């Protein structure tokens, strides 16, 4: 036999030809090709070209074989679909329950995936976003993402892996225009920012390199599209308009295109300034030439063909150079690259953690819905055993039957996925309007695009196949004969241990899963309750805060003190004011200050950790206004100013930590630097929370504002009367002193929203999805129990005819259902005990195994499942024995 590659190709292709046509098909092709080969051998030699020609012809066999396929598949597929729809329509209750369960499960997953899509998957809306990477300044043992301007400039000039390197900073600003004062966030960017990103202006022009040459000489700004719409009414004359930012005039030169967010996904910044204007925008700090001031985020566009690893290696060579040249500032600094958009790397791990939690939760919910589906399909299959047996007996292949059943479960799954889009979109809208506390420049611009729909579709398919396969396969197992003879519930085939074990364990799993979710939610709700009774260290009721920043308005040191003193006088004179005071920042806010404490006589060793404390600057009357108790000594007075002895107030924890067993009044220490002027303790206040709500026993020290003037100012006022009108009055006082000062206000109770935010979110998520899981579990149990009762109508009829009372039947049915439920509750409790300790950091004031919550949730679950068992059981008792006995 000569070598005939085309022969082997034919054999291979022939595998996909339908069996009954295969022999003829093979012969036809082989005959033709062999004949051609013979011809070629006669007329020419069988050279390479001819052999290749033969092989090419045999490739046509593939087209032929494929053509012979689709008609058969198409016909059978249409058959399966039509039959499936008919079968599902016959049992609307079953179909509805299954589709609803799946809709809830799939919808939840779709919603969460849209969040993931927006945060992690969607590229930034710029030119060729896949080339952009973020540089992270990895130095020593901490991962900061920021670089200093001189380092950035050196990286930019010395590297050969980036076609462009940009730097930027995001910061709060006060914006005044057309009589409106607003607080906004903005970018300071390097001159090549917009050209590197490849975006063009919607109006006017964007910043270019020429706008970033001389520090202080380019008072220009680009505004964002949304800001242009909202605050400037989309007026075309915005280009060339002058606006006041941080007390200085800037000219608007252009508007960014719609949808452009900048280089950070979650940031709500709306203004872009040249970095050259840095010291004008940030009064009192000039870091453009300080190599040690690491304030900038840096991103770069990789040259085509350069990989991240190559770039990282090359950049680290430059980092080593810089380390050698400037050892003080750059010691041990290395560079790591990461995906852009998440504030370098700083937000990534938090985001991933949060998203991971969400995915786990919705994954569990979907699992529950799928278990429902599987259970319902199993129950349904038991009902259809006669039909299946008949078809098998008539000669249908098991594969064909399984395909038929699988088609039905796919129909349910895809139907559920489509229906699930409704709750998904609703949930996404809810997330979009999630109110973050003010001063947090984060926006959740969740987009639902093709990726989300594709995900939903694929997930539905996977669900249908995975969870339909086992029931479908199981349905075609077992003895045909008893089914054909229709022996009903007495058939041992139905009672087979494997089949009941599967169904039982599914129910148990459902109950256990929903218990775990609900437990998490319940604990969070308790924690939130407890939050109201936490020892905060101040009294949030009946007090409010108004904050503004004198730095942003261009006030110098002496002017600041003057402003603050006058304001305090005027506010105290207002009617209804019980107490008023100032501070640079309030506890449990977005920012907090720490400082190092150097006790008298203590010599700090090199590299040893210097003890620290939370720090603040306050005016006289602050603690009174906050409602903080003074335990010993006195508060600051107007006499504690720059000419007097430097003083400080400490809290109980500070006294315990640094002056254990002694009277702290009169003691002296230094703050910030070992050689700083010593301060003297004049009073002690009660402990409180300073950085977050979950802490305890942090040392806290404050110094008088008049001895150390500061720009950021918060006015705290307390009243027994109407708080909102008092807030308005104080605001008026501030504006009278400076009409351009943007002021942010909130009551102290509202301020607690921020630290409670993560807890609230987790509570809503776990609680919401926990209830959803409970609903699904209840639906599932109800469905399965109903089916069981319907199957056993015959048996129940006999029992009742033999003398069983309604109560006996009830007990029989319920006992079956509840045994499984209680096992599930037991397993769930054990799992919850193990898992809730993961949430410890969010549970303030509540232990992770809080007995009240555990008992409460377990009780709730048992009650709901009892109801789910009771309803079908009641239906069972209403069976007329005569009817039941005649029932098949």
């Amino acid at each position, binding site marked *: 036999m000569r070598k005939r590659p085309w022969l082997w190709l034919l054999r291979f292709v022939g595998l996909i030809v339908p069996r009954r046509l295969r022999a003829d098909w093979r*012969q036809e092709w082989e005959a033709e090709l062999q*004949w051609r080969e013979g011809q070629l051998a006669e007329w020419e030699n069988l050279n390479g070209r001819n052999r290749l020609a033969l092989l090419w012809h045999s490739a*046509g066999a593939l087209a032929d074989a494929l053509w012979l396929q689709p008609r058969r598949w198409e016909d059978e597929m249409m058959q399966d679909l039509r039959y499936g729809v008919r079968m599902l329509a016959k049992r609307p209750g079953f179909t509805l329950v299954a589709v609803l369960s799946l809709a809830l499960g799939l919808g939840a997953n779709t919603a969460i995936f849209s969040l993931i899509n927006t945060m992690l998957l969607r590229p930034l809306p710029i030119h060729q976003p896949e080339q952009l990477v973020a540089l992270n300044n990895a130095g020593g043992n901490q991962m900061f993402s920021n670089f200093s301007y001189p380092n950035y400039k050196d990286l930019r000039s010395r590297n050969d892996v980036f076609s462009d390197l940009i730097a930027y900073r995001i910061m709060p600003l006060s914006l005044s225009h057309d009589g409106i004062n607003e607080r906004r966030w903005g970018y300071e960017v390097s001159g090549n920012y917009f050209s590197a990103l490849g975006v063009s202006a919607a109006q006017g022009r964007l910043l270019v390199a020429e706008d970033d040459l001389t520090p202080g000489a380019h008072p220009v700004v680009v505004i964002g599209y949304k800001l242009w719409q909202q605050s400037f009414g989309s007026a075309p004359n915005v280009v060339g308009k002058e606006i006041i930012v941080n007390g200085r005039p800037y000219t608007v030169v252009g508007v960014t295109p719609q949808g452009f967010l900048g280089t950070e996904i979650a940031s709500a910044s709306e203004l872009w300034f040249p970095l050259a204007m840095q010291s004008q925008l940030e009064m009192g700090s000039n870091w453009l030439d300080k190599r040690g001031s690491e304030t900038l985020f840096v991103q770069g566009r990789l040259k085509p063909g350069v990989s991240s690893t190559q770039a990282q290696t090359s950049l680290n060579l430059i980092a080593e150079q810089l380390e050698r040249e400037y050892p003080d500032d750059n010691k041990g600094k290395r560079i790591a690259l990461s995906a852009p958009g998440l504030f370098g790397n700083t937000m990534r791990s938090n985001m991933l953690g949060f998203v991971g939690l969400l995915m786990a939760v919705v994954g569990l919910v979907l699992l529950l819905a799928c278990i429902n589906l599987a259970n319902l399909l199993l129950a349904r299959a038991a009902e259809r055993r006669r039909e299946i047996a008949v078809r098998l007996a008539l000669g249908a292949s098991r594969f064909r039957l399984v395909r038929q059943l699988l088609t039905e479960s796919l129909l349910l799954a895809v139907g559920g996925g489509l229906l699930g889009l409704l709750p998904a979109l609703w949930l996404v809208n809810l997330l979009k309007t999630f109110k973050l506390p003010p001063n947090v420049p984060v926006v959740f611009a969740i987009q639902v695009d093709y990726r989300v729909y594709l995900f939903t579709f694929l997930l539905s398919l996977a669900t249908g196949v995975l969870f339909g396969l086992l029931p479908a396969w199981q349905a075609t197992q077992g003895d045909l004969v008893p089914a054909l003879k229709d022996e009903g519930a007495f058939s041992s085939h139905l009672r087979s241990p494997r089949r009941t074990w599967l169904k039982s364990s599914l129910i148990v799993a459902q109950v256990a899963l929903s218990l775990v979710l609900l437990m998490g939610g319940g604990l969070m709700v308790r924690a939130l309750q407890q939050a109201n009774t936490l020892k905060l260290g101040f009294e949030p009721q009946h007090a409010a805060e108004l904050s503004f920043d004198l730095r942003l308005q261009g006030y110098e040191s002496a002017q600041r003190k003057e402003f603050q003193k006058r304001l305090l006088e005027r506010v105290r004179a207002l009617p209804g004011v019980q107490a008023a005071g100032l501070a640079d920042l309030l506890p449990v806010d977005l920012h907090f200050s720490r400082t190092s404490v150097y006790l008298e006589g203590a010599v700090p060793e090199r590299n040893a950790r210097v003890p620290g404390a939370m720090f603040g600057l306050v005016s006289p009357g602050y603690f009174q206004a906050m409602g903080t108790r003074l335990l010993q000594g006195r508060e600051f007075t107007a006499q504690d100013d720059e000419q007097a002895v430097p003083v400080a107030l400490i809290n109980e924890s500070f006294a315990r930590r640094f002056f254990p067993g002694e009277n702290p009044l009169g003691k002296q220490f230094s703050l910030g630097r070992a050689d700083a002027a010593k301060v003297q303790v004049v009073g002690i206040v009660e402990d409180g929370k300073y950085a977050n709500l979950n802490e305890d026993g942090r040392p806290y020290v404050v110094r008088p504002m008049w001895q150390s003037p500061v720009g950021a100012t918060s006015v705290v006022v307390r009243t027994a009367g109407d708080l909102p009108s008092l807030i308005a009055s104080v605001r008026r006082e501030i504006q009278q002193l400076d009409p351009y000062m943007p002021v942010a206000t909130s009551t102290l109770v509202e301020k607690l929203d921020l630290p409670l935010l993560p807890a609230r979110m987790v509570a809503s998520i776990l609680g919401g999805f926990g209830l959803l899981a409970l609903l699904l579990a209840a639906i599932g149990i109800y469905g399965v129990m109903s089916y069981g009762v319907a199957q056993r109508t015959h048996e129940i009829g006999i029992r009742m005819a033999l003398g069983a009372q309604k109560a006996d039947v009830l007990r029989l049915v319920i006992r079956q259902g509840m045994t499984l439920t209680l096992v599930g509750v037991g397993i769930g409790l054990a799992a919850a005990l193990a898992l809730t300790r993961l949430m410890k950091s969010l549970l303030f004031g509540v232990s992770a195994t809080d007995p009240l919550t555990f008992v409460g949730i377990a009780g709730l679950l048992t009650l709901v499942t009892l109801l789910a068992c009771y309803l079908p059981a009641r239906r069972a008792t209403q069976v007329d024995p005569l009817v039941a006995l005649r029932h098949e």
Partner: protein
Amino acid sequence: MGHKYLSYTMALILQALDNGYRYGFEVMTITGLASGTVYPALRRLEDAALIKSKWEKQSVAQAEQRPARKYYEVTKTGHRVLGEARQRFRLLEQMTPQVALKPAREES
């Protein structure tokens, strides 16, 4: 069956069969169409009962030590439909030989 609409390729292949090129390979070479076009077309024509297939005589195949080839003949319906197609594609009419061609081999 209802009136069959013949595409140009199908008409070409039918005409080739009518002209005496009975085997798949010959139709391929004479029309210049690819095997991936010709064979599915032959299947379709056969399904529509415009042509019918036969195996060549075993003795002929055996003599040449190869499997028997399949050849196709145009049926009566096929002739009628081809006639209609010729009305539509006038060039085909010009390709119809005036004298019946002698087939390349003796069939039965």
